[in-house]
């Protein structure tokens, strides 16, 4: 033995109050999958990529999958060692320290909130479309905002009721939607066959176009890391959370590759290069199919919002516990054992922004694109910091290896290229998006400075997680007792 260290365990968990160690693997996976919303994404984002760039979808999505797998490979070792309740925020804190953690935390909060808004907005839009398809011609300007507010209220109720109920709902919804879309593709392929003519090479690899396409495609994967916000509530979190983080990008990636290959090689040659409609629009051959697809997308986005807000509430909950945010946010419902104050505080803006956008008459497609792109900044920012934190965290606990440093270096460089590229392109396209994210991050910097002056004790506490407590070591009484 080289050095003697004083080993210590906390007498009680700093994040006590949540229902500890209850969710089985299926529920943890459900959280990760729902936050990604594969059904909603595979029917919307490929079209968005096509419209913006016209590059080969399969190539763009394969590259995006590569970037996301790098991030997952960086996040996984941390989830094996520490059961976080606030996702990447706590890992950044343990690796890079409190200041980057608060910045990364706000970046993640921004991402989760924006995806929550996206989900709420999409629920309204697609429900409205589905209703119109069946001939219920209500004024969309009224129905959509009301649907959004109602959906947000249902989400809040489900989340306060308990994360378990929410996760179950989400998994069923997502599986049904994915199954339906796959069946539709299968049916189309069986009826129409693969076009004999080789597809025209899509606008031969302009690197700039490809960069945009990759950035947009990454948006299709974000959310998988949100499984790490269930570290306190999952059963055997140090086994189940890493498993969810490993499999979610792989599984959704496989699904996307099928969907974009279908779009690229079956639909596109048939419809001509100028027709770049969404997969679903091309598949929707009859009103009843169109109705079913719209319902699928709406439910998938509902699940997505639910999962993102579940993660959001837990980050805010931890910030409340640490004193980084007002302590009230760190309260847990005594009976339900959910972070109800954080949920109730997060919901009004998440419901109000999409409702306001709908009332203002912003076109659905445009609003969705903007919200998704904007959330992408939040996610990428937190991913970047988390990947940088990984080897430092491992080094701190004496388990870093040369491979960890190399992996992090590659991941951080790749993400930096993506973030810089995204910012540069966005500044040329729609400067208000990076400006808004920049403003939020400036606010985060101001928050850190304020914490430094006024609440140094809170900054020192940053990174609370679900620690080992005596009950994890030994049963106080014999097992049979």
């Amino acid at each position, binding site marked *: 033995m080289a050095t003697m260290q004083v080993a210590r*365990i906390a007498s009680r968990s700093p994040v006590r109050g949540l229902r500890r160690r209850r969710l089985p693997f299926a529920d943890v996976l459900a959280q990760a999958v729902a936050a990604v919303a594969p059904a909603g994404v595979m029917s919307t984002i490929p079209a968005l990529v096509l419209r913006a760039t016209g590059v080969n979808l399969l190539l763009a999505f394969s590259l995006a999958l590569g970037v996301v797998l790098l991030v997952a490979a960086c996040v996984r070792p941390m989830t094996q060692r520490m059961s976080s309740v606030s996702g990447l925020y706590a890992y950044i804190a343990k690796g890079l320290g409190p200041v980057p953690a608060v910045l990364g935390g706000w970046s993640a909060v921004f991402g989760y909130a924006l995806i929550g808004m996206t989900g709420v907005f999409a629920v309204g839009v697609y429900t409205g479309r589905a209703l119109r398809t069946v001939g219920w011609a209500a004024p969309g300007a009224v129905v959509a905002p009301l649907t959004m507010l109602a959906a947000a209220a249902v989400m809040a109720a489900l989340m306060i009721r308990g994360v378990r109920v929410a996760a179950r709902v989400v998994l069923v919804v997502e599986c049904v939607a994915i199954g339906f879309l796959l069946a539709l593709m299968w049916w189309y392929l069986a009826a129409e066959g693969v076009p004999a003519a080789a597809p025209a090479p899509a606008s031969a690899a302009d690197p700039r176009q490809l960069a945009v396409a990759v950035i947009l495609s990454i948006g299709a994967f974000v959310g998988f890391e949100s499984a790490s916000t269930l570290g306190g509530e999952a059963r055997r979190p*140090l086994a189940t959370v890493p498993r969810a983080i490993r499999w979610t990008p792989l599984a959704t990636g496989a699904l996307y590759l099928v969907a974009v290959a279908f779009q690229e090689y079956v639909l596109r040659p048939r419809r001509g290069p100028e027709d770049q409609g969404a997969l679903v629009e091309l598949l929707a051959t009859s009103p009843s199919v169109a109705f079913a697809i719209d319902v699928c997308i709406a439910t998938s986005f509902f699940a997505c919002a639910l999962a993102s807000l579940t993660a959001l509430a837990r980050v805010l909950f931890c910030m409340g516990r640490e004193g980084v945010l007002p302590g009230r946010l760190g309260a847990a419902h005594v009976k339900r054992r959910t972070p109800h104050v954080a949920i109730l505080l997060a919901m009004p803006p998440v419901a109000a922004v999409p409702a306001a956008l709908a009332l203002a008459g912003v076109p659905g497609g445009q609003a969705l694109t903007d919200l998704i792109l904007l959330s992408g900044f939040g996610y990428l920012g937190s991913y970047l910091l988390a990947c940088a934190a990984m080897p430092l965290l491992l080094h701190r606990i*004496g388990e870093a290896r040369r491979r960890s440093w190399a992996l992090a270096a590659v991941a951080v460089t790749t993400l930096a290229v993506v973030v810089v590229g995204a910012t540069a392109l966005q500044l040329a396209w729609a400067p208000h998006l990076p400006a808004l994210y920049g403003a939020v991050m400036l606010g985060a910097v101001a928050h850190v400075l304020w914490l430094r002056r006024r609440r140094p004790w809170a900054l020192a506490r940053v990174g609370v997680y679900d620690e080992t407590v005596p009950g994890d070591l030994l049963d106080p009484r014999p097992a049979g007792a």
Partner: protein
Amino acid sequence: MNAPAARTPTANAMAVVRAVALLGFGATAREVCAYLRMPPASVYRILNGLVGDEYLVRTGDLHGFGLGRAAAELVQTIAPPVVTTAARDAIDAFRVRVRFGVHVLEFRDLSLLVADEDADHPIQARVELTRALHASAPGKLLLAQTPDWRTRRAGALTQLTPGTITDPDALERELAGIRAAGMATDVGELVAGRACLAAPIGGDRERAHGALCVTGPAERADVLTGLADEARAVARALAPLLY
């Protein structure tokens, strides 16, 4: 005393658990590597796998390791029961009063451990006693407080003697009777010609921690049954001395 690197993954994992146990609570990954002379990569992988499955836990600073609940269960189910001097005196006093064998058994999850055996009346069929819970009085007492015994103890109810209850539904009825009586008996079910009476130790309202058993020839079962109240009283007196 360092264990040489084992050859199979399972053996490696067990070696890591053993190393953490021997190095003491808070042992670090490096210490385990040095102790086992195994490559860090394998040790880190094994440690994280074991922490995931809760055989090990990490200390608050994430540096160190200790035995987790799953490993603790392994230890708890085989560690020999402790019988205090005061408890032994009480048991011996009871032995002097009755002319039967008196044993104290401890319940460990779904198994029985002999805590104190009567030297003058050695336990017969010791293996059957601990394995065939459905055939003995203390075993049935343990099953009676384990509602999910059917799923947890899979396998047929072995016929040890003509008297053994082998029908699950019949056994369920027997267990209901035991719960109502707070007492279990077996007459020729474990060993032909032997009878046993078991009174729960501790756990008036919840689970008992063990059983006080009085055994004798089956033809004197009525005398044994007559001792029920006394056995119950002794068992009650033993509870605070043992647990």
